[in-house]
């Protein structure tokens, strides 16, 4: 990679890091895991930079991040490094306000498997259609639908009182 390519890559990384780190943080739910995911995806993008710089490097990098997050190897490594943090503890809903609902939802999101969590992030944060999510993850639309359905069902199971709280609010 010559100096010009490296300068363009550095400029791209500097300008797009905040947005990409937000996605990585949503996908992983942990600061260090988010940095690790982003760096892994960037390391996979660097050798392709010459062919990507005139195309869509951000799309490629995002796709690598999504697929890396649900990959089998990463799941295996994550299982070895599993550490409980305070954020993983269950939050009891408190009818005093709306913050507790979001805290409970945040804790429930952490309990989702990576594949279901990734689908939720792409559908509800990135606002992608099911077809776009399927293309990004390299799976079928039916898989995206089933994962979304399972994720929402699981969240409803984890938060049985949320809808009651919302009504009360």
């Amino acid at each position: 990679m010559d100096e010009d390519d490296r300068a363009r890559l550095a400029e791209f990384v500097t300008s797009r890091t905040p947005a990409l780190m937000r996605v990585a943080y949503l996908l992983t739910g942990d600061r260090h895991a988010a940095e690790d995911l982003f760096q892994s995806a960037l390391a996979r993008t660097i050798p392709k930079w010459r062919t990507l710089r005139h195309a869509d490097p951000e799309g490629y990098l995002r796709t690598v991040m999504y697929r890396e997050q649900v990959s089998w190897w990463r799941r295996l490594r994550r299982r070895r490094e599993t550490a409980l943090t305070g954020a993983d503890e269950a939050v009891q809903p408190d009818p005093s306000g709306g913050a507790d609902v979001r805290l409970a939802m945040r804790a429930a999101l952490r309990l989702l498997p990576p594949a279901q969590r990734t689908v939720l992030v792409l559908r509800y944060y990135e606002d992608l259609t099911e077809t776009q999510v399927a293309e990004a993850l390299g799976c079928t639309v039916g898989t995206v639908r089933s994962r979304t359905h399972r994720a929402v069902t699981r969240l409803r199971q984890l938060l049985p009182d949320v809808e009651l709280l919302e009504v009360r609010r």
Partner: protein
Amino acid sequence: MTTPFEDLIRATLSDLAEEAPRVQDQLTPAERRFRNRRRTTVTLGAAGVVAAVLIGAPIAVAAGGGDAPRPAVPSAPPTPAAVSPSPAEPTAVPSPSGPPTAVPTPPGDPTAGPVPSASPPGRPGRPVPSPSRPGGPTAVPSPESPGGGPGVPSPWPTPSPSPRR
């Protein structure tokens, strides 16, 4: 068409995204990872090639080593009927250049006993019929063998020892 539950998911994800850490200079550690990754890939590839050669070379040599001629199969041992002394007539003419063969000796020598012609132990020589003059003695398998049954027919003439002079 969104449900309140989906709106809650959206709001929670947006809140979470705002809490994403601010990081600086992710390019340098990413490049370091890339170099480590490439080094690991090259090392593992070289190790795989070496392992394949170490495993495959003996197998290939064993499988492809059939160019050398096969070791000679020892011929059928001469049957007692075939090597039994037959002092009657000379059967083979000595060839000057060939391997030791049956030596014809004139019959009737009183000083010599019937001794089979010597041939190297372990590799019995075959009587080679030499080009002979018309009417000369030729190598003929001796069909009669005193006290023995007919020998196993062989495509080669069996030596018939004759008494040494």
